[in-house]
Protein backbone atom coordinates (compact mmCIF):
# COMPACT_ATOMS: atom_id res chain seq x y z
CA UNK A 1 0.00 0.00 0.00
CA UNK A 2 1.39 3.35 -1.05
CA UNK A 3 0.43 5.22 2.10
CA UNK A 4 1.98 2.86 4.62
CA UNK A 5 5.14 3.94 6.38
CA UNK A 6 8.15 1.87 5.44
CA UNK A 7 10.70 0.88 8.04
CA UNK A 8 13.74 1.97 6.11
CA UNK A 9 12.67 5.62 6.33
CA UNK A 10 13.40 7.18 9.65
CA UNK A 11 10.19 8.96 10.65
CA UNK A 12 10.57 10.68 13.96
CA UNK A 13 9.06 13.57 15.84
CA UNK A 14 11.89 15.96 14.96
CA UNK A 15 10.97 18.40 12.21
CA UNK A 16 12.91 18.10 8.99
CA UNK A 17 13.87 21.09 6.84
CA UNK A 18 12.04 21.14 3.51
CA UNK A 19 12.35 23.84 0.93
CA UNK A 20 9.42 24.65 -1.32
CA UNK A 21 8.43 27.37 -3.77
CA UNK A 22 5.00 28.98 -3.38
CA UNK A 23 3.15 31.33 -5.71
CA UNK A 24 2.31 34.89 -4.67
CA UNK A 25 -1.29 34.12 -3.77
CA UNK A 26 -0.36 31.24 -1.42
CA UNK A 27 2.44 33.30 0.15
CA UNK A 28 0.07 36.15 0.82
CA UNK A 29 -2.62 33.83 2.24
CA UNK A 30 -0.12 32.20 4.59
CA UNK A 31 1.08 35.62 5.73
CA UNK A 32 -2.52 36.71 6.43
CA UNK A 33 -3.45 33.48 8.25
CA UNK A 34 -0.29 33.75 10.37
CA UNK A 35 -1.23 37.30 11.31
CA UNK A 36 -4.84 36.31 12.05
CA UNK A 37 -3.89 33.28 14.14
CA UNK A 38 -0.91 34.98 15.78
CA UNK A 39 1.42 32.21 14.64
CA UNK A 40 4.62 32.03 12.63
CA UNK A 41 4.39 31.30 8.93
CA UNK A 42 6.12 27.94 9.50
CA UNK A 43 3.47 27.00 12.06
CA UNK A 44 0.72 27.89 9.61
CA UNK A 45 2.28 25.85 6.81
CA UNK A 46 2.72 22.87 9.15
CA UNK A 47 -0.89 23.18 10.36
CA UNK A 48 -2.29 23.35 6.82
CA UNK A 49 -0.11 20.48 5.63
CA UNK A 50 -1.16 18.27 8.58
CA UNK A 51 -4.82 18.94 7.84
CA UNK A 52 -4.42 18.28 4.12
CA UNK A 53 -2.47 15.06 4.68
CA UNK A 54 -5.19 13.76 7.03
CA UNK A 55 -7.89 14.70 4.52
CA UNK A 56 -5.97 13.06 1.67
CA UNK A 57 -5.46 9.83 3.62
CA UNK A 58 -9.13 9.68 4.60
CA UNK A 59 -10.31 10.41 1.06
CA UNK A 60 -7.98 7.75 -0.32
CA UNK A 61 -9.13 5.19 2.27
CA UNK A 62 -12.82 5.86 1.57
CA UNK A 63 -12.24 5.69 -2.17
CA UNK A 64 -10.32 2.40 -1.97
CA UNK A 65 -12.92 0.96 0.40
CA UNK A 66 -15.83 1.94 -1.86
CA UNK A 67 -14.09 0.33 -4.84
CA UNK A 68 -13.70 -2.88 -2.81
CA UNK A 69 -9.91 -2.81 -2.99
CA UNK A 70 -9.41 -2.81 0.77
CA UNK A 71 -11.36 -4.06 3.74
CA UNK A 72 -12.80 -2.14 6.66
CA UNK A 73 -9.90 -2.37 9.11
CA UNK A 74 -7.31 -1.62 6.42
CA UNK A 75 -9.32 1.49 5.57
CA UNK A 76 -8.98 2.64 9.18
CA UNK A 77 -5.24 1.92 9.05
CA UNK A 78 -4.74 3.92 5.87
CA UNK A 79 -6.79 6.85 7.17
CA UNK A 80 -4.78 6.59 10.40
CA UNK A 81 -7.91 6.64 12.55
CA UNK A 82 -9.66 4.11 14.79
CA UNK A 83 -12.22 1.65 13.41
CA UNK A 84 -14.92 3.59 15.27
CA UNK A 85 -13.90 6.82 13.57
CA UNK A 86 -13.67 5.11 10.19
CA UNK A 87 -17.20 3.79 10.53
CA UNK A 88 -18.36 7.31 11.39
CA UNK A 89 -16.54 8.63 8.30
CA UNK A 90 -18.29 5.97 6.18
CA UNK A 91 -21.58 7.33 7.50
CA UNK A 92 -20.69 11.00 6.91
CA UNK A 93 -19.41 10.38 3.39
CA UNK A 94 -22.48 8.27 2.54
CA UNK A 95 -20.32 5.34 1.43
CA UNK A 96 -21.54 2.97 4.16
CA UNK A 97 -20.40 -0.58 4.83
CA UNK A 98 -20.35 -2.41 1.51
CA UNK A 99 -22.23 -5.64 2.11
CA UNK A 100 -22.97 -7.82 -0.96
CA UNK A 101 -26.67 -8.35 -1.71
CA UNK A 102 -26.40 -12.16 -1.76
CA UNK A 103 -25.58 -11.96 1.95
CA UNK A 104 -29.26 -11.34 2.77
CA UNK A 105 -30.26 -14.95 2.04
CA UNK A 106 -26.89 -16.56 2.70
CA UNK A 107 -26.45 -15.07 6.18
CA UNK A 108 -30.03 -15.72 7.28
CA UNK A 109 -29.85 -19.33 6.09
CA UNK A 110 -26.56 -19.77 7.96
CA UNK A 111 -28.40 -18.85 11.17
CA UNK A 112 -31.07 -21.42 10.23
CA UNK A 113 -28.39 -24.06 9.66
CA UNK A 114 -26.88 -23.36 13.07
CA UNK A 115 -29.99 -22.97 15.20
CA UNK A 116 -32.90 -24.36 13.19
CA UNK A 117 -35.91 -22.77 11.54
CA UNK A 118 -37.13 -22.39 7.98
CA UNK A 119 -34.67 -21.34 5.27
CA UNK A 120 -35.71 -18.22 3.43
CA UNK A 121 -35.85 -17.40 -0.27
CA UNK A 122 -36.19 -13.75 -1.10
CA UNK A 123 -39.21 -13.19 -3.33
CA UNK A 124 -38.48 -11.17 -6.43
CA UNK A 125 -40.58 -8.05 -6.89
Amino acid at each position, binding site marked *: MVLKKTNNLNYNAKNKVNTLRLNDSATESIYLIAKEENKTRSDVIRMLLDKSIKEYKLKKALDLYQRGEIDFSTGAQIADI*SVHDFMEELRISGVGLQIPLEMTEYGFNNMVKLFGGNPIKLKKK
Partner: protein
Amino acid sequence: MLFFFFLFLSILFNLKEYKRIQFINTLYSIIFMVFNSKINKKIAIVDSSFWININRVGLVDYLLERFELIFTSKVEDELLVNFKLFYTPRDIIVYNKLKDMDLIKIRNPKNVSDNLYNSLCKTSGEVQTIALAIELNGAVLVDNSAAIEYCIKNKIQVINTINFILYSYDQDKLTYEQSLEKINILKPFIRDKYIYQNLDLLAQIKGDKYGIKKDK
Protein backbone atom coordinates in the same frame (compact mmCIF):
# COMPACT_ATOMS: atom_id res chain seq x y z
CA MET B 1 -32.57 -32.40 50.21
CA LEU B 2 -34.99 -30.59 52.52
CA PHE B 3 -32.24 -30.35 55.14
CA PHE B 4 -29.93 -28.58 52.68
CA PHE B 5 -32.70 -26.25 51.63
CA PHE B 6 -33.35 -25.17 55.26
CA LEU B 7 -29.62 -24.91 55.88
CA PHE B 8 -29.37 -22.61 52.86
CA LEU B 9 -32.26 -20.48 54.10
CA SER B 10 -30.84 -20.18 57.62
CA ILE B 11 -27.44 -19.11 56.22
CA LEU B 12 -29.16 -16.58 54.01
CA PHE B 13 -31.18 -15.00 56.82
CA ASN B 14 -28.31 -14.98 59.29
CA LEU B 15 -26.09 -12.98 56.97
CA LYS B 16 -25.87 -9.21 57.17
CA GLU B 17 -27.74 -7.44 54.40
CA TYR B 18 -24.77 -6.51 52.22
CA LYS B 19 -23.31 -10.01 52.60
CA ARG B 20 -26.68 -11.48 51.72
CA ILE B 21 -26.74 -9.47 48.50
CA GLN B 22 -23.17 -10.57 47.76
CA PHE B 23 -24.13 -14.19 48.42
CA ILE B 24 -27.18 -14.01 46.17
CA ASN B 25 -25.10 -12.36 43.43
CA THR B 26 -22.46 -15.09 43.60
CA LEU B 27 -25.12 -17.77 43.52
CA TYR B 28 -26.80 -16.10 40.56
CA SER B 29 -23.56 -15.91 38.56
CA ILE B 30 -22.80 -19.61 39.32
CA ILE B 31 -26.29 -20.63 38.14
CA PHE B 32 -25.93 -18.37 35.08
CA MET B 33 -22.56 -19.90 34.15
CA VAL B 34 -23.77 -23.50 34.66
CA PHE B 35 -26.94 -22.77 32.69
CA ASN B 36 -24.97 -21.14 29.90
CA SER B 37 -22.52 -24.01 29.61
CA LYS B 38 -25.45 -26.45 29.27
CA ILE B 39 -26.88 -24.66 26.26
CA ASN B 40 -25.50 -25.80 22.94
CA LYS B 41 -23.69 -22.64 21.94
CA LYS B 42 -21.96 -22.29 18.61
CA ILE B 43 -18.48 -20.91 18.23
CA ALA B 44 -18.33 -17.51 16.56
CA ILE B 45 -15.31 -15.43 15.69
CA VAL B 46 -16.20 -11.77 15.86
CA ASP B 47 -14.83 -8.96 13.73
CA SER B 48 -14.67 -5.29 14.73
CA SER B 49 -17.34 -4.03 12.30
CA PHE B 50 -19.89 -6.58 13.57
CA TRP B 51 -19.07 -5.86 17.22
CA ILE B 52 -19.59 -2.12 16.78
CA ASN B 53 -22.92 -2.63 14.99
CA ILE B 54 -24.33 -5.30 17.29
CA ASN B 55 -23.65 -2.97 20.23
CA ARG B 56 -25.23 -0.10 18.36
CA VAL B 57 -28.50 -2.05 18.11
CA GLY B 58 -28.19 -3.46 21.64
CA LEU B 59 -28.34 -7.17 20.82
CA VAL B 60 -25.28 -8.42 22.70
CA ASP B 61 -27.43 -10.35 25.21
CA TYR B 62 -29.13 -12.34 22.43
CA LEU B 63 -25.76 -12.90 20.82
CA LEU B 64 -24.36 -14.36 24.04
CA GLU B 65 -27.35 -16.68 24.32
CA ARG B 66 -26.50 -18.25 20.98
CA PHE B 67 -22.75 -17.95 20.51
CA GLU B 68 -19.51 -18.50 22.33
CA LEU B 69 -17.68 -15.34 21.34
CA ILE B 70 -14.03 -15.42 20.34
CA PHE B 71 -11.94 -12.46 19.22
CA THR B 72 -8.45 -12.47 17.74
CA SER B 73 -5.73 -10.26 19.25
CA LYS B 74 -5.62 -8.27 16.05
CA VAL B 75 -9.32 -7.39 16.24
CA GLU B 76 -8.99 -6.62 19.94
CA ASP B 77 -6.16 -4.18 19.12
CA GLU B 78 -8.27 -2.57 16.40
CA LEU B 79 -11.14 -2.03 18.82
CA LEU B 80 -9.15 -0.84 21.78
CA VAL B 81 -6.96 1.64 19.94
CA ASN B 82 -8.91 4.85 19.99
CA PHE B 83 -6.69 7.56 18.66
CA LYS B 84 -8.81 10.65 18.75
CA LEU B 85 -11.80 9.85 20.88
CA PHE B 86 -12.50 11.82 24.01
CA TYR B 87 -14.83 9.14 25.31
CA THR B 88 -14.91 5.36 25.55
CA PRO B 89 -17.43 3.93 23.08
CA ARG B 90 -20.14 1.74 24.61
CA ASP B 91 -18.98 -1.33 22.72
CA ILE B 92 -15.56 -1.06 24.37
CA ILE B 93 -17.12 -0.84 27.84
CA VAL B 94 -19.25 -3.92 27.08
CA TYR B 95 -16.24 -5.69 25.59
CA ASN B 96 -14.08 -5.12 28.68
CA LYS B 97 -16.90 -6.16 31.00
CA LEU B 98 -17.58 -9.41 29.13
CA LYS B 99 -13.89 -10.19 28.91
CA ASP B 100 -13.57 -9.80 32.67
CA MET B 101 -16.51 -12.20 33.08
CA ASP B 102 -14.74 -14.66 30.77
CA LEU B 103 -17.62 -14.51 28.30
CA ILE B 104 -15.25 -13.31 25.58
CA LYS B 105 -12.15 -15.29 24.75
CA ILE B 106 -9.04 -14.30 22.82
CA ARG B 107 -7.48 -16.81 20.43
CA ASN B 108 -5.27 -16.57 17.40
CA PRO B 109 -5.04 -18.80 14.33
CA LYS B 110 -2.07 -21.15 14.12
CA ASN B 111 -1.64 -20.55 10.42
CA VAL B 112 -3.24 -18.57 7.65
CA SER B 113 -3.64 -20.10 4.19
CA ASP B 114 -1.98 -18.44 1.20
CA ASN B 115 -5.34 -18.26 -0.54
CA LEU B 116 -6.75 -16.19 2.34
CA TYR B 117 -3.66 -13.98 2.51
CA ASN B 118 -3.85 -13.27 -1.19
CA SER B 119 -7.59 -12.56 -1.17
CA LEU B 120 -7.68 -9.98 1.63
CA CYS B 121 -5.29 -7.34 2.97
CA LYS B 122 -2.56 -9.13 4.88
CA THR B 123 -2.55 -6.81 7.86
CA SER B 124 -6.31 -6.71 8.39
CA GLY B 125 -8.13 -8.24 11.34
CA GLU B 126 -10.53 -9.95 8.94
CA VAL B 127 -7.79 -12.32 7.74
CA GLN B 128 -7.10 -13.52 11.29
CA THR B 129 -10.83 -13.79 12.04
CA ILE B 130 -11.56 -15.99 9.01
CA ALA B 131 -8.44 -18.12 9.55
CA LEU B 132 -9.49 -18.82 13.15
CA ALA B 133 -13.07 -19.60 12.08
CA ILE B 134 -11.71 -22.19 9.61
CA GLU B 135 -9.51 -23.75 12.32
CA LEU B 136 -12.27 -23.94 14.93
CA ASN B 137 -15.06 -24.68 12.45
CA GLY B 138 -16.94 -21.66 13.75
CA ALA B 139 -19.04 -18.95 12.19
CA VAL B 140 -17.62 -15.59 11.14
CA LEU B 141 -19.51 -12.57 12.45
CA VAL B 142 -18.60 -9.67 10.18
CA ASP B 143 -20.23 -6.64 8.54
CA ASN B 144 -17.66 -6.00 5.86
CA SER B 145 -17.74 -6.73 2.13
CA ALA B 146 -14.36 -8.28 1.36
CA ALA B 147 -14.51 -10.73 4.25
CA ILE B 148 -18.13 -11.66 3.44
CA GLU B 149 -17.33 -12.22 -0.24
CA TYR B 150 -14.43 -14.51 0.65
CA CYS B 151 -16.63 -16.49 3.07
CA ILE B 152 -19.45 -16.91 0.54
CA LYS B 153 -16.98 -18.00 -2.14
CA ASN B 154 -15.37 -20.55 0.17
CA LYS B 155 -18.63 -21.72 1.80
CA ILE B 156 -17.65 -20.53 5.27
CA GLN B 157 -20.53 -19.74 7.62
CA VAL B 158 -20.80 -15.99 7.82
CA ILE B 159 -23.44 -13.85 9.55
CA ASN B 160 -23.87 -10.09 9.76
CA THR B 161 -25.80 -7.85 12.16
CA ILE B 162 -28.89 -7.52 9.96
CA ASN B 163 -29.07 -11.30 9.45
CA PHE B 164 -29.02 -11.63 13.22
CA ILE B 165 -31.82 -9.06 13.64
CA LEU B 166 -34.02 -10.77 11.03
CA TYR B 167 -33.42 -14.23 12.50
CA SER B 168 -34.27 -12.91 15.98
CA TYR B 169 -37.54 -11.58 14.55
CA ASP B 170 -38.21 -14.88 12.78
CA GLN B 171 -37.69 -16.71 16.09
CA ASP B 172 -39.96 -14.24 17.96
CA LYS B 173 -37.12 -12.82 20.04
CA LEU B 174 -37.87 -9.38 18.60
CA THR B 175 -41.13 -7.78 17.52
CA TYR B 176 -41.61 -6.34 14.02
CA GLU B 177 -41.34 -2.79 15.37
CA GLN B 178 -38.15 -3.56 17.29
CA SER B 179 -36.56 -5.17 14.24
CA LEU B 180 -37.54 -2.24 12.04
CA GLU B 181 -36.13 0.21 14.56
CA LYS B 182 -32.84 -1.66 14.76
CA ILE B 183 -32.45 -1.85 10.98
CA ASN B 184 -33.16 1.89 10.82
CA ILE B 185 -30.41 2.53 13.39
CA LEU B 186 -27.97 0.78 11.04
CA LYS B 187 -29.30 2.51 7.93
CA PRO B 188 -26.74 5.36 7.83
CA PHE B 189 -23.84 2.94 8.25
CA ILE B 190 -24.67 0.37 5.58
CA ARG B 191 -25.21 0.94 1.87
CA ASP B 192 -28.82 1.70 0.93
CA LYS B 193 -29.41 -1.19 -1.49
CA TYR B 194 -28.60 -3.75 1.17
CA ILE B 195 -30.81 -2.04 3.74
CA TYR B 196 -33.81 -1.88 1.37
CA GLN B 197 -33.41 -5.52 0.40
CA ASN B 198 -33.47 -6.50 4.06
CA LEU B 199 -36.49 -4.32 4.78
CA ASP B 200 -38.23 -6.28 1.99
CA LEU B 201 -37.18 -9.51 3.66
CA LEU B 202 -38.49 -8.29 7.01
CA ALA B 203 -41.86 -7.58 5.39
CA GLN B 204 -41.75 -11.01 3.72
CA ILE B 205 -41.10 -12.77 7.04
CA LYS B 206 -43.95 -10.79 8.60
CA GLY B 207 -46.21 -11.87 5.74
CA ASP B 208 -45.17 -15.53 6.11
CA LYS B 209 -45.76 -15.38 9.85
CA TYR B 210 -49.16 -13.76 9.98
CA GLY B 211 -50.51 -14.30 6.51
CA ILE B 212 -51.46 -11.61 4.03
CA LYS B 213 -54.96 -11.03 5.48
CA LYS B 214 -53.73 -10.30 8.98
CA ASP B 215 -50.85 -8.25 7.62
CA LYS B 216 -53.32 -5.94 5.88
